[in-house]
């Protein structure tokens, strides 16, 4: 046998370390479809508990929408379950191309290519577009999948302080010698829910002759008046060269991602992006459902409007109750607690109250910035949000943090 005692004890010890550092992630079993209200078995073997879900990326509440589920069924009936192939051998159906075209129309881009996930899109795109004489200039808080994608690319890496335009400009000056430069940012940053300054970024890109890539995974479908994304929200439609985004959040939430943008770059991805070339095609069920999602959100903005109203209501009420919330307009509403244990304890108590939220601490967020990240959805009704606010208030009182700002919470609980 090759799995020796030495190997077994080494990997076992690694797991113990993860546990002792408080970084061990436990999965909770959900025994119902994804929705505002879900049945959860946690811990394993415990009776199922009905809780309100405030930690899903189900921003538009489309994950279990009847029309989306029906479209998935039709996809299964008319195009089958799997294709047993990558795209370029025999894994491209007519509906794959339809979805790519619909995504281009929706995002306002020239062309789109589907990937198995946005992680794959980010893993593939940089290495295709840039080479060693080029530069990647990235915001320091970009998503982990972008960091991994950039590691796979030979281009020189520069990074700038989060959303700091003066620092970005400095990096653009420093990298002046490079052939092509790509500014890389998330549209919305997933831990703070803050929005990239895309208007200023585009202006700098034009001034210094750089391209712009935005990962819009936490925006596509609901940011901007028509929900096209951060580029619509910031008034820079048509000025972003590459958008990477996901079908796994607002757009039905199953899986799949894409690169969308300048047609030559998209075509190059089709020819050369390794995660595209060597991953199986997206199953027809998901493709058919995603087409329906794009149809639904192109027809009416009702869902993104409801999400916006829910977000404003929750943020306003929670601020009035005395919680320290990162300001903003995004449905990611971070309730700042600073102390990691406090965030974990409050999340646990909220779960007991029937509110499913997660506490985040270092290294997922910077040291001393632990928080509970609340995510609103168009699936939430006003009464769901009121229940969450009431539970938060009760638990906030228990821990005596209402009305307290950063320094006072740190004084009470430490960092």
């Amino acid at each position: 046998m090759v799995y020796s005692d030495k190997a077994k004890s080494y990997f076992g010890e690694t797991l113990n370390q993860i546990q002792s550092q408080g970084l061990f992630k436990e999965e909770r079993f959900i025994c119902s479809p994804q929705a505002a209200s879900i049945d959860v078995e946690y811990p394993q073997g415990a009776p199922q508990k009905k809780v309100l879900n405030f930690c899903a990326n189900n921003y538009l509440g489309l994950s279990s929408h009847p029309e989306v589920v029906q479209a998935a069924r039709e996809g299964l009936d008319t195009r089958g379950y799997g294709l047993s192939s990558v795209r370029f051998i025999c894994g491209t159906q007519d509906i794959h191309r339809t979805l790519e075209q619909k995504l281009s129309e929706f995002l306002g881009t020239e062309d789109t290519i589907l990937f198995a996930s946005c992680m794959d899109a980010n893993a593939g795109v940089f290495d295709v577009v840039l080479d060693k004489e080029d530069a990647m200039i990235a915001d320091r808080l970009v998503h982990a999948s972008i960091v991994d994608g950039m590691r796979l690319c030979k281009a020189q890496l520069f990074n700038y302080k989060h959303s700091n335009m003066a620092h970005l400009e400095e990096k653009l000056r420093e990298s002046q010698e490079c052939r092509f430069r790509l500014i890389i940012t998330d549209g919305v940053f997933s831990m703070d829910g803050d929005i990239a300054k895309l208007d200023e970024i585009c202006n700098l890109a034009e001034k210094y002759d750089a391209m712009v890539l935005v990962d819009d995974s936490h925006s596509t479908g609901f940011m901007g008046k028509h929900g096209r994304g951060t580029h619509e929200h910031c008034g820079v439609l048509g000025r972003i060269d590459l958008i990477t985004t996901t079908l796994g959040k607002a757009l039905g939430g199953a899986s799949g991602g894409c690169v969308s943008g300048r047609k030559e770059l998209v075509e190059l991805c089709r020819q050369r992006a390794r995660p595209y070339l060597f991953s199986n095609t997206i199953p027809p069920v998901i493709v058919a459902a995603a087409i329906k999602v794009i149809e639904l959100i192109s027809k009416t903005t009702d869902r993104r409007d409801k999400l916006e109203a829910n977000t404003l209501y929750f943020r306003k009420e929670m601020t009035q109750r005395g919680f320290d919330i990162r300001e903003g307009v995004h449905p990611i509403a971070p309730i700042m607690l600073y102390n990691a244990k406090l965030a974990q304890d409050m999340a646990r108590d909220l779960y007991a109250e029937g509110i499913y939220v997660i506490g985040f601490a270092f290294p997922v967020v910077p040291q001393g910035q632990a928080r509970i990240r609340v995510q609103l959805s168009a699936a939430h009704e006003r009464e769901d949000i009121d229940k969450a606010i009431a539970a938060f208030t009760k638990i906030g009182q228990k821990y005596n943090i209402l009305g307290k700002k950063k320094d006072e919470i740190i004084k009470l609980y430490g960092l």
Partner: protein
Amino acid sequence: MPDDIKQTIIEYIKKEYLDEDSTDEVTENTQLITSGIVDSFSMVSLKMFLEKKFNIKIPDEKATPEAFDSVNNIIKLLKEFTQEV
């Protein structure tokens, strides 16, 4: 070892990684990676700065989070590549 080299690195770290309004102090012993001042992704700009400044090439396998975790550790690393420190 000349203190001004330490000071140059400290100044760079403050300028490059701390917010303008930050009151955090950085000394030669401050933990940079462990404390989260410099994350492993941003470490690359620190490596580039050192390479340019001292005209050296630090191989990737030497540029570990431990080697970059304090200004003192960085100085130790630099000594492997240059007489200047």
